[in-house]
């Protein structure tokens, strides 16, 4: 087969921009080997498990898994086991339990859900396996149930999106929200952050519509099409991920709008979306950086060396706007 | 005191008034015949009596008390036991489970006592002449055997009333005798019996009273003895006696002219594991060959094998000298073989389709060009056969599922004839159809033979077989054990051949045992 179309989003993740720690400096609570009562191991010869939550079918997940794999290779870790829960939470639980049974000594988990990890933690504690959760935080006690969390602050992302939206609309106008999958913590937090911030800084911006686009381009497009008919005077669209934003762009084109008529702000920072800014269809994108590999293994190394690591490692996410989109599009994932 | 009675009952189905102000009373210890043409409303009346249908109008009284059975279960609990038309058992369940469904013997813990159930089932069935492993799935039994199981099931309970809707339609003379023995016994115990049958001989043998339905109305009720047979028929059909007398009661005329010596159908060495063990058969154009034998002799299997519906381990089938290559139903139909299946409901009609579509089904390729059907051609053919077979339907577009049994049978015949076959294989062509329709079908068989078709006829009605066939091939356990020709084609001849084969087989078995 001959390929012509360029893979729009999700090209093979390049080195890209690594993650930068935003907080988690020694001033916050920390956790060390002694505190947890675990034993020291050599990471290079250790068995490491990584549990991915959703299939690697969107740029974020592709980049995330790839980053873990790349970094493990770089660190010389040979025994890396990967599982993928295919968006089934109970499968993720048994995946992780099975990895603990098979004797992994470090677990990196990208949780599908923030609650429901009791049985896993019980098992991990019994076997003294530290768990680093990445990208989504688990509602449990760090340094007891799990070691630490590395990831973005989703609520903060929502707030920053709100700032961008308010700025784009000049603090007034009606806005539609394309929600992620219902029940998903990411959806909940990105919605909460956005709404709270809008209420605070731009009370004249009215949220007139919020429907789920299931984090997918097609649903995002369908919902936007309906929304544009029912709310022809919509001024802005806040999409909780880039895929839905790109779906909204197709819907806008279909409705005869031109670039910039409706301000779109979204979250993630995939290459397709950043390109959208360059093309003028998107206003701005708040990044959610998926390249957890380096930071995760750095943290683990420190931990096993007996050094204290922060219990909450929040990375600083960048943002893409008209100003930097063109130059940074190559760095997007 | 009247045991069971209905007064002024009416029941309407969409478009049809099946029962119209019907009154009927059953006394204790009487065998009450319920007769009428196909579609007269007999089964409907029975279903109203036993809670399957709710009457639109009128009242049901049981032992003097007004009752309203919501479900068949209520009726059964009250002591009314019923054998419904068309065997109504569960084919996937074991014979014993069918027999005891809803009244399984239970142990101290209240759990079903399987072992006792199987033992008792075997005992009961042996008495009814069904000797089989009761753990077998019921569906693997022949229809007649299933009917005996249904009978045993109905009689097993302590019933006050036993209702039998065409219990003999798939039974052999021998089984019919068994059934009559049972009925006489119930009679002696003062149990009331409602008996529905299209076989008039049977009625006169065992019934005391008769109620005749026509078009949903009662046209006569009274003692059976006083009613002349010809008058019974005329009341059923609603024609005057002279007319009925003129037409006669069976439709067969007797001899057929055999045309040409070349067989139109030749089957040789048909073998199928467990069922057929080398059956040979030849039929010449214009000849009607009967297949005789007891239940499970393999007659249906022989027809199915010829019609391509039963896989064969060995054997050849030739139509007009040309061997069939593809042994499938499709191939057989193409070669000119038309099979009327024994089980009309399961293998014959397509109930959801109209009369018209059912008739045209097998000939569609011939009535179409480039895959497009020609409505005009279909209309012509459908009209021709509806007239010729006198199919009674409100229109060609009526659903076949809503027709009465006899008319469904005629629709099937029409489907077969529309293919202009060379060979007709008829498995119980008159099962469950009324005297009028039966005569029509029989006359039709004669007529078709006269047109040069080769016909193979299977019928559990010995009389029909004898009168209709020129030659009878007798089967037993999947083997041809004799052929009756000319004057030998008689009931006695048939029974003699079967009996001889039985004793031969029995003695062979004893010899084998001894050695």
């Amino acid at each position, binding site marked *: 087969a*001959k390929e012509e*179309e360029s893979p729009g989003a999700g090209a093979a993740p390049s080195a890209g921009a690594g993650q930068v720690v935003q907080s988690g400096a020694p001033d916050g609570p920390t956790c060390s080997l002694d505190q947890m009562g675990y034993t020291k191991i050599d990471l290079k010869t250790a068995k490491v498990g990584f549990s991915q939550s959703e299939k690697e079918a969107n740029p974020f997940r592709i980049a995330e898994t790839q980053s873990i794999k790349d970094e493990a290779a770089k660190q010389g870790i040979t025994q890396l086991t990967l599982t993928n829960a295919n968006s089934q939470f109970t499968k993720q639980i048994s995946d992780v339990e099975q990895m603990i049974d098979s004797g992994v000594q470090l677990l990196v988990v990208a949780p599908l859900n923030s609650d429901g990890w009791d049985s896993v933690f019980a098992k991990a504690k019994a076997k003294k396996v530290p768990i680093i959760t990445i990208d989504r935080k688990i509602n449990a006690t760090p340094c007891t149930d799990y070691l630490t969390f590395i990831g973005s602050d989703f609520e903060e992302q929502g707030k920053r999106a709100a700032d961008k939206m308010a700025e784009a609309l000049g603090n007034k106008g009606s806005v539609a929200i394309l929600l992620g999958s219902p029940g998903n913590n990411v959806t909940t937090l990105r919605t909460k952050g956005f709404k709270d911030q809008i209420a605070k800084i731009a009370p004249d911006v009215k949220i007139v519509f919020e429907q789920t686009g299931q984090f997918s381009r097609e649903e995002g497009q369908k919902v936007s099409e309906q929304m544009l008919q*029912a709310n022809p005077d919509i001024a802005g669209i806040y999409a909780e991920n880039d895929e839905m934003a790109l779906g909204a762009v197709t819907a806008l084109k279909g409705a005869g709008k031109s670039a910039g008529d409706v301000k779109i702000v979204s979250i993630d920072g995939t290459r397709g979306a950043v390109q959208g800014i360059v093309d003028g269809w998107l206003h701005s994108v708040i990044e959610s950086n998926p390249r957890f590999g380096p930071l995760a293994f750095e943290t683990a190394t420190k931990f096993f060396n007996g050094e204290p690591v922060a219990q909450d490692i929040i990375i600083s996410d960048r943002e893409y706007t008209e100003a930097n989109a063109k130059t940074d599009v190559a760095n997007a994932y | 005191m009247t045991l069971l009675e209905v007064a002024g009952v009416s029941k309407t189905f969409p478009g049809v008034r099946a029962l119209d102000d019907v009154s009927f009373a059953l006394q204790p210890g009487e065998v009450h015949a319920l007769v009428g043409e196909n579609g007269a409303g007999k089964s409907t009346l029975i279903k109203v009596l036993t809670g399957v249908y709710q009457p639109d109008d009128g009242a049901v009284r049981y032992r003097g008390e007004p009752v309203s059975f919501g479900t068949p279960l209520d009726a059964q609990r009250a002591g009314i036991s019923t054998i419904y038309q068309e065997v109504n058992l569960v084919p996937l369940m074991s014979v014993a489970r069918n027999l005891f469904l809803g009244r399984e013997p239970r142990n101290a813990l209240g759990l079903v006592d399987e072992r006792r159930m199987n033992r008792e089932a075997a005992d009961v069935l042996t008495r009814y002449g069904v000797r089989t492993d009761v753990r077998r799935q019921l569906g693997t039994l022949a229809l007649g055997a299933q009917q005996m199981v249904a009978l045993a099931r109905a009689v097993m309970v302590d019933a006050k009333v036993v209702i039998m809707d065409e219990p003999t339609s798939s039974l052999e003379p021998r089984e019919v005798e068994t059934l009559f023995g049972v009925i006489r016994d119930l009679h002696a115990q003062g149990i009331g019996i409602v008996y529905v049958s299209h076989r008039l001989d049977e009625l006169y043998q065992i019934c005391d009273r008769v109620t005749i339905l026509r078009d949903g109305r009662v046209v006569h009720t009274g003692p059976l003895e006083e009613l002349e047979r010809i008058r019974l028929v005329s009341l059923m059909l609603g024609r005057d006696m002279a007319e009925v007398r003129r037409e006669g009661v069976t439709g067969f005329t007797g001899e057929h002219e055999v045309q040409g010596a070349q067989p139109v159908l030749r089957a040789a060495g048909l073998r199928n594991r467990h069922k057929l063990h080398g059956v040979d058969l030849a039929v010449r154009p214009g000849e009607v060959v009967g297949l005789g034998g007891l239940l499970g002799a393999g007659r249906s299997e022989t027809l199915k094998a010829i019609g391509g519906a039963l896989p064969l381990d060995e054997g050849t089938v030739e139509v007009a000298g040309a061997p069939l290559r593809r042994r499938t139903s499709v191939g057989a139909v193409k070669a000119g073989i038309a099979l009327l299946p024994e089980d009309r409901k399961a293998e014959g009609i397509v109930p959801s389709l109209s009369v018209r579509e059912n008739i045209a089904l*097998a000939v569609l390729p011939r009535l179409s060009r480039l895959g497009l059907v020609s409505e005009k051609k279909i209309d012509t053919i459908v009209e021709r056969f509806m007239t010729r077979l006198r199919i009674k339907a409100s229109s060609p577009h009526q659903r076949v599922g809503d027709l009465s049994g006899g008319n469904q049978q005629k629709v099937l015949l029409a489907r077969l004839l529309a293919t202009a076959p060379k060979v007709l294989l008829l498995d119980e062509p008159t099962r469950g159809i009324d005297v009028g329709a039966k005569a029509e079908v029989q006359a039709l068989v004669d007529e078709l033979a006269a047109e040069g078709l080769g016909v193979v006829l299977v019928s559990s009605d010995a009389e029909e077989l004898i009168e209709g066939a020129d030659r009878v091939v007798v089967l037993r356990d999947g083997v041809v054990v004799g052929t009756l020709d000319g004057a030998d084609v008689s009931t006695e001849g048939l029974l003699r051949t079967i009996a001889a084969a039985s004793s031969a087989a029995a003695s062979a078995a004893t010899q084998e045992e001894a050695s």
Partner: protein
Amino acid sequence: MTDVAVRTPAQRVRAWLPAYGVYVAIVVLLLFNIAFTENFLAWSNLRIQLIQVAPVVIVALGMALVIGTEGIDLSVGSVMALAAAFIPLYLGYGVVAAILVALIAGVAVGAVNGLLVARVGLQPIVATLALLVAGRGLALVVSDSQLREIRNPGLVELGSGSLFGLPYLVWIALALVLTVAFVVRRTVFGRRLLAIGGNRPAAELAGVPVGRVLVTVYVVSGTLAAVAGVLAVARIQASDASAVGVLIELSAITAVVVGGTPLSGGRVRVWGTVAGALLMQLVVATMIKHDLPSSTAEMVQAVIILVAVYAARERRSR
């Protein structure tokens, strides 16, 4: 048999409702929207509804045929994904070639379904369930799990262009509806498939080539699903094997059943199916436009399905 000529009005309504209940429901919903939904009667809005319903209609057509044979096809969503996955791989050879490959994928999956059902004798729901799982996996393998944007002008035009004011998508769906209606009504194939659904052993004995007809029916269903997959790609201007067609089997089955085709086979209502799809589209659109939260929307949908199917159910007298 006495014909009962006189029927009460209630009886007449009851006889009529099963066939036309779904149309009544559509009218009710339309009236509601005209009264309470902003901008509803605008052509741009009606156009959106038609565009969105087109893929469901196309898939449902195949599903209706399969259901007519007393079968079911759960694999349609995965077939859409598979078709979508092949498009970007072969676009280099031209639009026509790419679409052809996509359709061949549909034919292939349909043939496997058909062979499993007709020749091996698997129950349709299991055979197609296996392909529902495997087909989606295969689509992801083919596409390397990547969403690929489509910028081919031909495909983009197919997805967003119009002819005489009506989008191509709608024209295509309409043409397919007419074809299938014609096939069901006028062809030997159509009658045979109904006979198989009505009573398979009987059809077999009547010389209907049951195996061949069944395989064809599943192939048709697979092909139609592939068409829907191609159109979905053209419309969203991206090939997304992981999301396209997810759960469309349930929408399609619902459309078929709400449209008055019984799941027990032997009857196919083509226009009813179209109406069923339209009804469900209107329900969803109404709820989105009125910004109902998904919890309420799902419960309302449940009730509407029940009411519509209740009205359209086969009545058996007791």
